[in-house]
Each structure stands twice: as C-alpha cells, then as structure tokens.
C-alpha cells in the first residue's frame, strides 16, 4: 500500500505556487516574470487534477486543467509579442527601467 496521499500533491503545488509568486515579485526581467506566472498556473493545475483524482470523478478536474493549459498558451503568445515590441523600443525588457509613465 502506497503511503502517498492527496496531501503530498497539495504540498508540492503550494510550494510551486509560492515559488512562482516569489519569482514574479523579485525578478526584473519581463521574461523571468512570465516564467513565474507559468509556475503559478501549473501549481493550480496540479490542484485541479489531484483533487479530482482523489475525489472520485477524475475527468472533471482534468478538463479544467486542460482549459488552463490552453489559456496559458494564448497568454504566452501575447506576452512574447509585447516583450519583443518593448525590446525594439526600449532596448531592454527590465520592468523597473521601463518607467516613463508617472506623475
């Protein structure tokens, strides 16, 4: 009998979520921030799949995870377009240096 339960998966997802949040708030490079966001979305997906696998209706959570993956793909495409354009205009992608808008 396996000793692994739902909690093990949830702990992994909590750690991933926290690492993702850490990445988003400490990184200057826009691409790195995007990586942090991907970590957060993946953490949420683990939750969906784990909860439904242990809840007795495995497929329903999986389908939500599928939707989140598709959304992440759409967001990544937009992100790349914006980042490339920023690079063309500002010559860097550091969020703290892109700061023309202020009082």
């Amino acid at each position, binding site marked *: 009998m396996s000793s692994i339960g739902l909690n093990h998966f*949830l702990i992994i*997802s909590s750690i991933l*979520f926290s690492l*993702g949040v850490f990445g*988003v708030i400490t990184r200057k490079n*826009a691409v790195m*921030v*995007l990586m942090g*966001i991907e970590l*957060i*979305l993946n*953490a*949420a*997906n683990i*939750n*969906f799949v784990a*909860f*439904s696998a242990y*809840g007795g*209706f495995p497929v*329903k*959570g999986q389908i*939500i995870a599928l*939707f*989140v993956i598709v*959304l992440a793909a*759409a*967001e990544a495409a*937009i*992100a790349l377009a*914006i*980042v490339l*354009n*920023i690079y063309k*205009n*500002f010559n860097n992608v550091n*969020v703290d240096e*892109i*700061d*023309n*808008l*202020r*009082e």
Partner: protein
Amino acid sequence: MTFTVHDLISLSPVLLIGVGILATLIIEMLVKESEKILGWFTFVLLLSVAYLSLILLDHTALVFEDKFLTGGRVNIFFFLFSFGAAVVSLLSMEYIKKAGIHFGEYYIMLLSSVLGMMLISGATDFIMIFIGLEQMSVCFYVLAGFNRRNERSLEAALKYFLLGSFATGFLVFGLGLIYGAVGSLSITEIVIGYETLKTSPLFLTGTLLFIIGFSFKIAAVPFHMWVPDVYQGAPTSVTALMSTTGKAAAFSALIIIFSPIIQAAYPSFFTPVISVLAVLSMLYGSIVAISQNDLKRMLAYSSIAHAGYMLIGLAAWNEKGVSGVIFYLVAYTFMNLAAFGLISLIEKRDLRGTEFSDYKGLGFKQPVLAGLMALTMFALSGIPPFAGFFGKYYVFLSAIEAGMTWLAIVGVISSVISVYFYLRLIVVMYFDNSDEIVMVTPSTSAMLGIMISVLLIIIMGVAPGSIINLINSTF
C-alpha cells in the same frame, strides 16, 4: 443536449456578436480600406445586440447544460456592455486615425472583448467566469499596446499584461482550492453547500485568493498599482472601454456569485474583506487624485475611488445594495465614456495634451466641449441632479439599511474630497487663460457618442426611479 427555439432566441445577443466577430474578420480580409466601414459596422452590430438584449429581458433560459444563463439581470448587463462598447466605437473612429492605429483589427478586438464580458455576466460556473474574463483581458492587453510605436502605449501593455496575468494566477489557484472544497465549480452547488463550506479553511482561502485576483480586475486598493499607468498609457478610446465596461464585467461576476448567496439570506463572511477594500479604495483614490496633473491619470485614480463606492453595495449584503451597484455601474459607465470621449477629442496628434495645463481657457475657446466636460465633472463628483448622485445615494442607502452607517459616512467624506479635483478642472477651464490655440474639430461620430452619454447621464439623474425599478424587477 437539446436546444429549443426559445433557447436560441434567448441566446441571440451572444450568437449575434459571435457571428459579428467572424463577419468583421471576413470584411477585414476581403474589402479594401475596410477600416472605413468597420467602425460603423461595429457600431450598428453592437447597437442591435443592445436592442436585442433589451427586448429579450424576460426570456430567461438556462442553456448549454446549465452552463449559461440569459434573461433578466444578465440581459441588463448585456445591454450595458454592448451599448457602452457601441459608444466607444463611435469615439474610436476619428481617434484611431489621429493616433495612427487605424486598423481593422481594432474593431475585432473590441467586439471580442464584449463577447468575453457577456460570457462573464451569464456564467453559472466559475470556470465560465474565468474563461470569459480571460477572453476580455487578452483583448485588453492587445488593445492597450495597440499603438505599437508609442512607448507609453507599449509600457502600459507590458504592465497590464504582467500584473493582469499575475492576478489570473491567483484567481486560478483560488479556484483550485474552491474546487477542492466543493468538488465542483458550479455556483449553485456552492450555494447548496454554503452552510458547511463557510467553516472550511480550504474554501475560505480559495475565496480569499479569488477575491484578491478579482480586486486586480476591478482596480481596488491595494491591488491597483497597474491602473494609473495603464489608463494613462493606453490609447484614450481603449481606456474608455476598459475603465467602463471592463470594470462593469468584473463587477457583474461578483454580483452573479454573491447574489444567490444573498438571496438565500446566508450571513456573509466576505463583508469584512469587502469593506476594507472599499474604504481603502475610496480614500486612496480620492486623496491621490488631488495631486495629479494629467487628466487621464486623475480619472484613473477617480475610477479606483468609484470601485470603492460600488464595493459598499456588495459589502452591505442585501438586494438593495446589489441593484444599487448595477445602477452605479450604468451611471459610471456613461459618465466615464463622456469624460474620456472629450479627452480624446482634445488630445493632440502626438497623444500629448492630456494635462490640466492644456485645458487652460478652454471655456472660451471651445465653449461646447468645455460645457459638456463641466457637466460630466459635476456628474462624476456626485452633484445632483445627475446620474452620479443617485448611484451614490442608492449604494449608501443600502449600507445604512444593513447597519453599516460608518461605511456610508466614509463614502460621503471621500465624495467631498473628490469634489475638489473634479471642480479643479472646471476652474482651470473657465478661470485660467492661455494664449495657446486649441485646434479641435470634433467629428460627427465622436460628438454623437459624447451626446448620447451626456443625455443618459441627465436622464438617469432626472428619472432614477424608473431605472432602479427596472433593475429591481429582474430579481
């Protein structure tokens, strides 16, 4: 899954806009210089969607395996989104020419964002809300950076995207926890299981993360940091869209989640969180707006404050509060549309000219525009007899009925502070003078959009009772 004719008729506003997006795509592809006709095409399409939503007000239907609701309050939101966006398309026509972003894709994005908003307001399921919200946000990210040679516009897009998708991350993770606690993401099941759920730490954490994610979208303090930069940097017509219908869509999600729980007369554990958000937003928005020199930025802070007033209605946790919020949303939408429409007219070709100093002496040089702007500012500051006053009145009244008089008092204090910066613009327009010549040739389309908004502000201020009765009748 079977569809009846009744279902199809009830769904027709959503279907029409979906077909419209595809038609716009095809026109954009096939017709040369499609930009010229697409503006009016979008306007007519959105207007017919708005008309359909109004005549189908009592066609309630639950379609797509109980995933989507139409009729009643949902249709009021449909009307608000499509009519607001129709006004935005009027304001956009000349403005996007001036800004050098005259492409057909602009209208495709505008229509798609409206589709996303409609899906949010009809959702019966968290996953549906989430997908609609994403559809709307993706369109807004693109629209904010639409002016891709303008550094300010790009910066706005980057900031909006990074913070917006960070908020999405919180939202999804919160949904994951809610899913774990409930075993489903359907709002009905959450309402059924509410008694046991309200002590579940998993559900509470999930809801808290969800509310944090949503506070980003409605621009409530302390999750407002993107608002001033994005509202200032984005093209003005886009700011008009996302500050009005975009915010209304996010509020419609909160309303459809909360109002079944309110109707079942369950006590609220959200009230403390929402009240804190409301108080912080009202005071922060009003106080920081005083020191702004850019009009778009000032309106951004004022929109944070307005989000605070609307949150009062939700914190009050009664049906009066909910209909007050809907009234406020309608009023706020048309006040802001008029204000941003006027700003977009006065803005110069290089997209500067949105500072207070650019408005010096406008009252003598452009008496019509200045008069409309003054009227809009009076309405925004909540001076009767305009729409803004009754919005605040209904919301504050619901708070007092719920025994939260202190919240209403904070709201009144914040409104009094806000009068200062709205009236400051009027003072600049009528009492300062400069020799600079303001060359404005208002186009027919933009003037039509502004006149519609101003007319609605006045009508809502003169006859608020009939509108609030209409909203109440949809409960």
